[in-house]
């Protein structure tokens, strides 16, 4: 199945500086598999929205889903 991934702000660096990527995944893949594919660094915290709704790493993806990865930093210390 195919999933569209969008990134904003500095997180675009995880999409090779593109706004959007199309990824091929096996059926019943979760958001966590996207993180693995995009080589998310350990220190980064992402928030994920799937088809306009807040999701988490365990959310199961379906063909054609649009997944946005967002940063939600608010100043603060850099603990993650």
């Amino acid at each position, binding site marked *: 199945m195919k999933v569209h991934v969008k990134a*904003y*702000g*500095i997180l675009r660096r995880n999409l090779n500086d593109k706004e959007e990527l199309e990824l091929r995944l096996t059926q019943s893949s979760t958001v966590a598999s996207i993180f693995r594919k995009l080589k998310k660094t350990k220190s980064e*915290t992402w*928030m994920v*929205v799937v088809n*306009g*709704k*807040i999701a*988490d790493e365990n959310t199961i993806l379906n063909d054609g889903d649009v997944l*946005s990865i*967002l*940063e*939600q*930093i*608010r*100043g*603060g*210390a*850099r*603990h*993650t």
Partner: protein
Amino acid sequence: MVFGYNEQILRINLSTRKIRIEKPSEFFYRRYFGGRGVIAYYLLKELKPGIDPLGPRNILVFAPGIVTGAPIPGGGRNSVGAKSPLTGAYGEAEVGGFWGAELKHSGFDGIVIQGKAKSPVYLWIHDGEVEIQDAQHLWGLDIGDSQESIRKDVGERLARTAQIGKGGERMVRFACIINDLKHSAGRVGMGAVMGSKNLKAIAARGHGGPEMADPKKLGELTKWILNNLEKEHGKMHEFGTGAMMTQGVLSGNLPTHNFRDAEFPNPEAISAQTIKETVRIRMESCYFCPVRCKKVVKIEKPYPVDPMYGGPEYETLAALGSNCGIDDLTAICKANELCQRFTLDTISTGSVIAFAMECFENKLLTKLDTNGIDLTFGNAEAMLHMVEMIAKREGIGDLLAEGTMRAAEKIGKGAEKFAVHVKGEDPGMHDPRLKRGLALGYAVKPTGADHMNNLHDTWTRSMPSFGIIEPVPLDDLGPKKVRLYIYKVTFEIIKNCLLLCDFVHWDEDQIVEIVRAVTGWDSNLWEIMKGGERSINMARAFNIREGFSRKDDWLPERFFHPQTSGPLSDTAVDPNKLENAKSIYYSMMGWDQVRGAPTRAKLEELDISWVADRLDVTWDLCEGSRQGLRNSSKKFE
């Protein structure tokens, strides 16, 4: 020899015009550090419970910290505190700029103001000297004009100022105090307390200041920030705050229409990127800071905006922008400038206007109430009129100047359900329906729904170096989230005691290094965290003494319902889970379940038995709860 502080706190009684200097011991500085610690110390020691926050018996405390004025990035800050006229609770606000460092360099570690001047005055503090000067000619002036006049009066063009404008003079309950024309000690009405004392400004200039224990180490730490500017601070020096507006809409976190909706079609119109491309003329810094995250904007038309007053932060862009349904950047910049001129907190100003707009939409307010102004969401002109009317307490502005909570009570007819506040304080522009940790954070913070020193769990889900290794899910409100909240907030609050900026990203080890290098103490993180915990307990104790209790740790009704559309249209804070989180929080903190009052044992453990002596508390948690019950039943007799 001592390092990092002057061993002098200035005491000024404006009623008697008596000035004296207190010389606290090293124990005082090492126990309370400054900021929140020092403010809570004086408020608990010197205020009688139940006093009028706008009466002469309130005190106003200007408190830099031990790090303020040190040659270190983020060390230009000070706190201001008093009993809050907005909440009736413990009041405190932090501010950057240069004034705090200047005060420290002029020989003082804090100022405690008592009484009320017979007519307007300002203070002139310079190299250990203090003068009370007449300010009748300054009363009513915008702060840009009064700063210029003060500098001429004292013959010092580099005098730094902390001031109030019309908002403070007219005791708008959310008036702020502004350092150096651009930096606001924003929240819970410290400017109104200053106005109630007829104190227009405090000007400071100093050429001395405390010695540093290890200047070489401070130089190395500064170099580290310079070498890691982009890596550690991203684009803060390029955009400042407000660079993630679209992400705010996509996640539901950008407050829109008084926290009701999610639809805000053009978030980029009010983003920091657009500001950079259109109206920004430069970025500026605070004292000794290379991050330089402060925008300065200049606009000729349609609304002329004077760059002397800086530019809007994220909180301002959301409060006076999206939360009022406004995407006109020039109008928001103008509103920000007016709030600076008049010294109004931009968050509460935007929030009370958004509240009034929702009342207007629901016909609880009409054009008869608004002097004919069409107070609908999205009407930028109307928003600008309201800012001026609030500062001058004209027409409906007089009602809104009382703050959201009191305005809702006065309007009645169900207006309370549109009043989004905790203990009277309007929330920061962050939604607890997304950031679930903020649900607890907004509820239990001593000052109200303040977003600073709080848990933004979209970002902080674990703290491995503190032992929280496994990330806690975003929507969790159980014991793991409460633990995360406690560790995070205890760590964050130390920045309000030492006085360090949240936007300079020192980690915990570096903060320890800074304290050691400034003071020469053999401090470690344990000692500093205990200082944070002490300050949290002291602020809590103040509120308990004022009669605040478990029931006051609550959220506005709005956050228990989903947004009308968008990412948060099927989720909200569960009131039962929040109540449960409070129980867990009180237990983990060593507070009783009825009032959330610290036990004597907890206060003794924090080495502040004198606080327990001033409270009606017991050694034992169960007895504390029983005592709380007896007290609450007495209250309603």
